[in-house]
């Protein structure tokens, strides 16, 4: 897909990379010259590779190792248990519940985050006076830390002192147990998460919208196409790479929602908001069982990797590259 697109492009937008490719074919170099790129690449990539190795890959491998052990009170691997941590997890109702809750949470948050952000971006893309103010407001949640956001929502969800229940009772609706009821709690955490996600998604989608060529709309308007026709036939296809990017990022973030769960519900009630990521945290830092915690981390990593690959495989086909 990309290749085809690149072929159509005229020479003006040919990148340096293409030039280098051409240049390389034509040349006859010594071995030392030929490996020059390797040396440069190694040098430039070294800081990243080093840091990734120490703080990303090594911990993952260490987690893999720990997942076959029980750990003692000091957190060192002390008893080899083979696959027990994994088999226990697959039999455990609590873990199955966490998986279910996590999937449900992703389902609640990803589509609505993207749709809300898209809606806001479409609104804010209109050329109106004072639109800058609206844009800043819509983007504002990007500047909110998890801790601050979750604390504010915690107070708004407060069963008796919270403003949400005050609003409900003032219009004669029954007060809701936002965070105390199993079904509601996950929805409430999802609402908070969607709110927190919106700023980032909005900014990116707005940028994407502004990159769409105005001429496309003009010719459509001349043809007498209505707003929704243009939206469906021009905006969404042209925006699809951005949308794809945003969906992928939101999706990954959704699996990693930690702070809001910690502050709002602590995984409860009755584990109704015990997302896998939170379950890992609890197992590791409250129960101090690094073995089972690591096994969960490995499973989570595997699942997200698989789902993301699937998304790339099937999702990218629907994406139009300019």
């Amino acid at each position: 897909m990309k290749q085809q697109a690149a072929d159509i492009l005229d020479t003006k937008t040919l990148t340096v990379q293409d030039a280098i490719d051409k240049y390389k074919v034509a040349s006859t170099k010594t071995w030392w010259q030929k490996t020059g790129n390797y040396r440069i690449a190694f040098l430039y990539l070294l800081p990243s590779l080093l840091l990734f190795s120490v703080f990303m890959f090594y911990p993952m491998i260490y987690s893999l190792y720990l997942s076959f052990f029980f750990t003692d009170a000091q957190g060192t691997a002390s008893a080899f248990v083979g696959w027990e941590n994994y088999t226990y997890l697959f039999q455990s109702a609590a873990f199955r519940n966490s998986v279910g809750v996590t999937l449900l949470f992703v389902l609640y948050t990803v589509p609505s985050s993207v749709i809300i952000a898209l809606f806001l971006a479409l609104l804010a893309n209109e050329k109106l006076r004072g639109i800058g103010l609206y844009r800043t407001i819509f983007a504002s949640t990007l500047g909110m830390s998890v801790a601050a956001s979750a604390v504010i929502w915690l107070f708004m969800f407060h069963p008796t002192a919270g403003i949400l229940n005050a609003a409900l009772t003032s219009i004669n609706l029954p007060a809701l147990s936002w965070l105390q009821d199993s079904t509601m709690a996950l929805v409430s955490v999802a609402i908070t998460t969607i709110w927190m996600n919106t700023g980032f998604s909005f900014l990116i989608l707005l940028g994407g919208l502004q990159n769409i060529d105005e001429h496309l709309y003009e010719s459509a308007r001349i043809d007498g196409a209505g707003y929704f026709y243009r939206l469906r036939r021009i905006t969404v296809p042209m925006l699809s790479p951005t949308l794809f990017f945003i969906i992928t990022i939101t999706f990954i973030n959704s699996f990693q929602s930690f702070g809001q769960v910690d502050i709002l519900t602590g995984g409860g009630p009755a584990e109704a908001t015990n997302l896998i990521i939170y379950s890992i945290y609890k197992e590791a830092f409250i129960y101090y069982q690094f073995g089972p915690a690591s096994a969960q981390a490995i499973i989570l990593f595997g699942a997200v990797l698989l789902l993301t690959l699937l998304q790339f495989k099937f999702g990218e086909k629907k994406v139009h590259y300019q």
Partner: protein
Amino acid sequence: MKKTLFFMSVSLLTLAACASNEEGETNEAEAEGEASAEEVDEETNNEAEISEEVVEIEFWHGMGGGLGDTLEALVDDYNASQEEFHITPEYQGSYEELLTQFRTVGGTETAPALVQMFEVGTKYMIESGYITPVQEWIDKDGYDVTQLEENILSYYTVEDELYSMPFNSSTPALYFNKDMFEEAGLDPENPPRTFSEIKEAAEKLTDEDTYGFSMLGHGWFFEQLIATQSADYVDQENGRTADATEVLFGGEEGLRAYEWLNEMNEAGTFEYYGRDWDDLRAAFQTENVAMYMDSSAGTKDAINNAGFEVGVSFIPHADEIDPNGVVIGGASVWMGSGISEEEQQGAWEFMKWFNQPEVQAEWHVNTGYFATHPEAYNEPVVEGEHEEYPQLRVPIEQLQATVPSSATQGALITVFPESREQVVTSLEELYQGTSPEDALQMAVEGSNRAIEVSERASE
């Protein structure tokens, strides 16, 4: 728009700065009148930097909010009271995070000389090897520990050795809305004591905006309901003679508590307000709940924040038994090992200091925690306080009436945090409709699995 936001923030910051100035001025004003404690403290601080004689001692704690402020003021007082040692309090997050933090740095040079630890971390601390039992210093110094409150000491005493110094101790009690009692035709001076009495009262108190009874989603309250029936939480004399191998709360005592809660929940006279202390308290204060169980440390807040008369009473107990009392909760202060003798000395001096009746009197009045020294209750400041808030006496009486036994001494298990989590989760399942037997069984199995894992890991 940038301007608007910018202007808003700038004005806000300026306001904040003014506010802090204002505070500074008040302090100065106070200081002019009499040499304030803070000023003295500042001098000691300065001296601490200059002279090398002063021993620096780190004190890790897990108290946020107003309690943290009180704790810091207490330490300031100590620092001002002598010149040999300087204690620096360091907040480490919640009790759980504090424990995690200590686990990881224990035995290294980052480890503190003094660390506060919640009661369920006791077993871990004893086994960690990173602490010196305070008994060593008690013996060395010939300190008379019997002067302190026996029912608090018993929790931290294992095989006749006191491991840590009591610090902030509390127990649960029953809190109720006296005005509502009167409206419902109940006697506010004679509150319900047994499960069935509570149940009946809850029925009378429930109407369309009010639930009769509620209990916080916290394992501590369930532990009390077991202990008062004189049942151990785990085997091996509540884990005090040897490592516990299984939990015992799954017996009839546990079932009574689960059934009781279930009956009220099904009758609609009970409402669950989650795990957050604040949510339940607010529900009580806004008269959505008529009776609930709370920590004795919150008594004064409960009275001050309520627009009605608050009654305090003993915790409920099963009809079949005579109540045995309560297990203390809260935290104690431990002395780190692997530090210099001098630092330990300083830590010990501080421990002795804060257990003095006068200091404990202040502590009790300012925080609501028990005084570890019974004589503190005779101090004028406490007597005045108790005059004003007679309800404060109830938890003290309840503690002093507690029958000493392994049950009321409290359980010692390493996996306590996990077991508590299992209990709360199973209670939440109960409130959502799981049968009492099944819910209780879940908590038992979950806790036993945790015990088994930790056992195998430490073999």
